[in-house]
């Protein structure tokens, strides 16, 4: 006897399931209320705010000097960029010109930060896809080396507080540039290693190719940015598009893919890491004053910290604004953005000339990219939810602030 499955009374029922907030693949705490029809996602509602730390409120109620140390926590995987966005808007209001050497140090440290951020994404994304065979530890190996370099120059491994309004805090110690060069020499081989394991892996290709297609129209409608839109054929990279700092002096390419799927986003980030190596190499060549050893030799001093030499070229200074607890910026308002590993991170500051800002507003790439998630997920099977969510590289502290 056969069952009559085509009977008109027999219909499927939609089911609502709750993913998170403590889902291991959400890289933080995000709750997704997913409506399913069988295996297919019909509707998604992200519920945010579990990591809300009132960053904007703190910006208005702490002095600017205090707040400088807090903003690394806005996006903890790329603290350099959050500091940089805030420093740039304050410098815009203040009309400060940052010394060249400081700008080069900013670019070097930020590009290193971009590499660490993409490496963490690579490792965790493979875990999201279920690759629990030990590969996720490969990127962490290189990430640790970069963190050691960060620690030597900024004193912290992740919450750097290195880029300040007006410049950067200190010169790298002796021997730091050599270690960095050594890392740059071996890192492209390491990327080859990741690619040998992942890029051509048939399981990886099956899970990612053609999955989570993002059309350029949707990306533009939702105000998305970063590698997500560059994988969809939109050439939006602020380093080229609205050049800031010393990026016009550096020769680099912006990887753009046309496919728009999860795999293209992966390839974009891999290509970006290779470009980072290229950018840092050029910066080490071009930095005014040379490495710390060369600078000290020219100045005739013996410690890496001292910067008060009389014959110091103004371009070799690190800081254009005195850093003390009473730090204040002029009255006015300014918006500035930099290209973070996740996209356009911007900061809108309204200052009334006191030591506290009147209004702080963050424009976070993760927040805007995540708002397109409900659009991306509809119609895909539930097994792909985490593959797509992971591929847009959302950092929840950056979403919730």
């Amino acid at each position, binding site marked *: 006897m056969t069952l009559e499955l085509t009977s008109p009374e027999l219909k499927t029922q939609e089911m609502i399931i709750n993913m998170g907030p403590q889902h291991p693949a959400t890289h933080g705490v995000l709750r997704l209320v997913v409506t399913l029809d069988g295996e297919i996602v019909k509707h998604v509602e992200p519920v945010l705010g579990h990591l809300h730390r009132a960053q904007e409120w703190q910006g208005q109620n702490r002095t600017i000097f205090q707040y400088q140390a807090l903003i690394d926590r806005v996006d903890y995987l790329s603290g350099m960029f959050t500091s940089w966005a805030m420093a740039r808007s304050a410098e815009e209001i203040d009309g400060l010109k940052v010394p060249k050497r400081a700008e080069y140090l900013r670019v070097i440290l930020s590009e290193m930060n971009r590499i660490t951020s993409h490496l963490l994404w690579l490792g965790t994304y493979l875990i999201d896809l279920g690759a629990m065979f030990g590969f996720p530890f490969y990127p962490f190996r290189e990430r640790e080396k970069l963190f050691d370099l960060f620690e030597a120059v900024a004193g912290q491994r992740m919450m750097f507080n290195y880029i300040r309004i007006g410049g950067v805090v200190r010169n790298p110690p002796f021997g730091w540039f050599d270690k960095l060069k050594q890392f740059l020499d071996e890192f492209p081989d390491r990327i080859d290693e990741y690619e040998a394991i992942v890029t051509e892996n048939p399981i990886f290709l099956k899970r990612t190719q053609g999955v989570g297609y993002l059309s350029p129209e949707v990306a533009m409608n939702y105000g998305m940015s970063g590698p997500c839109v560059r994988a969809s054929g939109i050439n939006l990279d602020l380093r080229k598009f609205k050049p800031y700092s010393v990026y016009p002096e550096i020769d680099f390419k912006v990887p753009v893919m046309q496919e728009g799927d999860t795999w293209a986003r992966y390839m974009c980030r891999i290509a970006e890491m290779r470009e980072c190596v290229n950018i840092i190499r050029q910066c080490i060549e071009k930095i005014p004053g040379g490495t710390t050893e060369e600078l000290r030799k020219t100045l005739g001093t013996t410690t890496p910290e001292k910067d008060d030499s009389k014959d110091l070229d103004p371009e070799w200074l690190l800081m254009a604004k005195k850093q003390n607890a009473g730090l204040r910026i002029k009255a006015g308002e300014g918006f500035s953005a930099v290209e973070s590993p996740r996209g356009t991170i911007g900061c*809108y500051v309204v200052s009334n000339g006191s030591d506290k800002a009147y209004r702080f507003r963050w424009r976070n790439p993760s927040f805007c990219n995540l708002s397109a998630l409900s659009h991306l997920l509809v119609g895909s099977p539930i097994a792909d939810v985490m593959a797509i969510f992971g591929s847009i590289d959302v950092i929840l502290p950056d979403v919730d602030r």
Partner: protein
Amino acid sequence: MSDAAHGAKPAEEPEKELAAGPFGQFLKEHGINSKRLPDHSGAVEVIEVEGKDLEAALKRLRNSQETQLNYLLTITGTEYPEHFESVYHLWSYTSTKELVVKVKIQKTAVAEGALPVVPSIANFWGAANWHERETYDLVGIRYSGHPYLRRILNPWDWDGHPLRRDYKQPVDALNDKNPHSMR
């Protein structure tokens, strides 16, 4: 020291009327009135439009070939001593143009206990959806016509709008043992 400056205006507004910039001129040609505001750096055009013209103005600026301001960076709500501002930062995916659009609501025009109202643009611009929800949540500006105006960062039953100057944090707000708490 610094608390005394809280109520002060962030920037002195000059008396004289500024000549319309290219975007102000463009809007005027299409029958939308705007007022140019002084900008600190001088590099970016800042205009103010009436709330009722907002939707038409932004649609024009977004879709027209001349302007192509199709990248909505962020929507900011700001409370000033005399008025509220809803600020739209517009960039373009295809050119380096940028524009800041402001809508001002005088506090005297807001009824006691009511929220200031600005028309929503989320119906035609997906990026605005969450920004408007966030501004409603934190600054307490109501975007009329928003498809789903609900708190986004704070819990749905939170009391008050934390970025208001007169906001007082409920002491026991997160203590679920307290029968009067909101949790």
